[in-house]
């Protein structure tokens, strides 16, 4: 009798499968990125010719837009798997579900979080953000968006079985996003004024470590409840 794949292989397999699915549904996955870009583009138009004001509120604008874009994309982590029954097959896998969940969340971050990182420099330039603040902006997005995906996954796992889970999802998840928002925008503000930002960055890193190590288990437990 042949034996099952190693956990690492199964992880990579599921990650690749989700990336392939995202590639075949690219229109759907482009939505959050488009939303992110459009929201930020509207601000200069709405606020008029006030470059100082714009540069001052740029960190807040970018991070609020990133948060809402992440919210918009969350449902796609588990929705289609729940609807077509593949989620049951994942839950019945011989591998630990938490690790498979981590593979799915990683794939989700690669298709929704990473693109934000790539367009952020352009948007920062457009809002007139100072050159000193831009590396910090990218760093906070790099650390912060995986946290959004990881925390969001718990919320989606809890609400995926409900018919109208959208509102509950935002009520559940947004409060948990607030610390990330606060520390990220405070870091960028400090960087713009030339202060040290290591405190905020360490705080964000701590959030990231905490969510990587805890969220997959919580998500797996919530998925079992939703599927049961």
């Amino acid at each position: 009798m042949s034996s099952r794949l190693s956990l690492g292989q199964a992880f990579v397999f599921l990650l690749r499968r989700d990336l392939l699915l995202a590639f075949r549904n690219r229109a759907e996955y482009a939505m959050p990125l488009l939303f992110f870009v459009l929201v930020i583009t509207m601000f200069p138009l709405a606020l008029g010719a006030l470059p100082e004001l714009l540069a001052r509120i740029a960190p807040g604008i970018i991070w609020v837009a990133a948060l809402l874009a992440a919210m918009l994309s969350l449902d796609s982590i588990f929705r289609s798997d729940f609807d077509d029954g593949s989620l049951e097959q994942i839950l019945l896998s011989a591998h630990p579900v938490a690790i498979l969940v981590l593979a799915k969340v990683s794939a989700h971050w690669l298709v929704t979080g990473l693109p934000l990182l790539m367009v952020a420099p352009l948007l920062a330039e457009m809002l007139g953000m100072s050159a000193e603040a831009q590396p910090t902006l990218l760093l906070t997005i790099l650390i912060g968006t995986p946290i959004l995906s990881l925390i969001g996954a718990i919320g989606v796992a809890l609400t995926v079985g409900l018919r109208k889970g959208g509102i509950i999802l935002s009520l559940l998840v947004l409060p948990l996003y607030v610390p990330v928002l606060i520390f990220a925008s405070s870091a960028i503000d400090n960087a713009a004024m030339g202060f040290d930002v290591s405190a905020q960055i360490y705080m964000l890193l701590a959030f990231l470590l905490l969510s990587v190590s805890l969220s997959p288990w919580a998500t797996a437990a919530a998925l079992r409840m939703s599927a049961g």
Partner: protein
Amino acid sequence: MSTSTLLETRDLGCIRNDRQLFERLNFALKAGEMLVVEGPNGCGKTSLLRILTGLRLADGGEILWRGEAIDRLAGDYYEQVNYVGHHDGSKHELSCLENLRLARAMGVPSELDLDDVLEQVNLYAYGESEVGSLSAGQKRRLALARLLATDSMLWILDEPFTSLDKASMEMFSILFEQHLQREGVIVITSHHDISLPTMAVQRLDLGKPS
């Protein structure tokens, strides 16, 4: 044929929407035996099957696999289980082969080549086709092909014959028989008549008050 009991339930109970669907349900399946769960709609057939897979928690009692409770076995139990439920569990955007490869990655791959698996369920020509473009019966055959693509002792099948034609039903009946001969175990619900040697078949009627 060995006579050891593989799957056993002890005083299993299920409550759904404040209604007791069944209680004190006991059965034991030895290697090479099949359990056909019968009863009218809404009597708890699907719930029983989902409880047996571990997807749903029982509201009382326990399930033993080779004498050990399944919630303690976890992954070691799941690698023995193959479940085909109401939903096919295939990704419509992926091809038949990609779906089967995923099923293998999640469980224990069987020694059969995937092309042979597709050949057996008459889907050989559709290996590279997207599942979304297949007919309902073909999708069902692909879902059942998972049984061949992975190695597992216990098959739990919820209405496997939905939207299958007569020829496919017969073909799968033969596959079920072969699985029983290999000392596997099958738990099945079906409104279709299944032609199998009656010796190995136990019947459980959930509709009757026990």
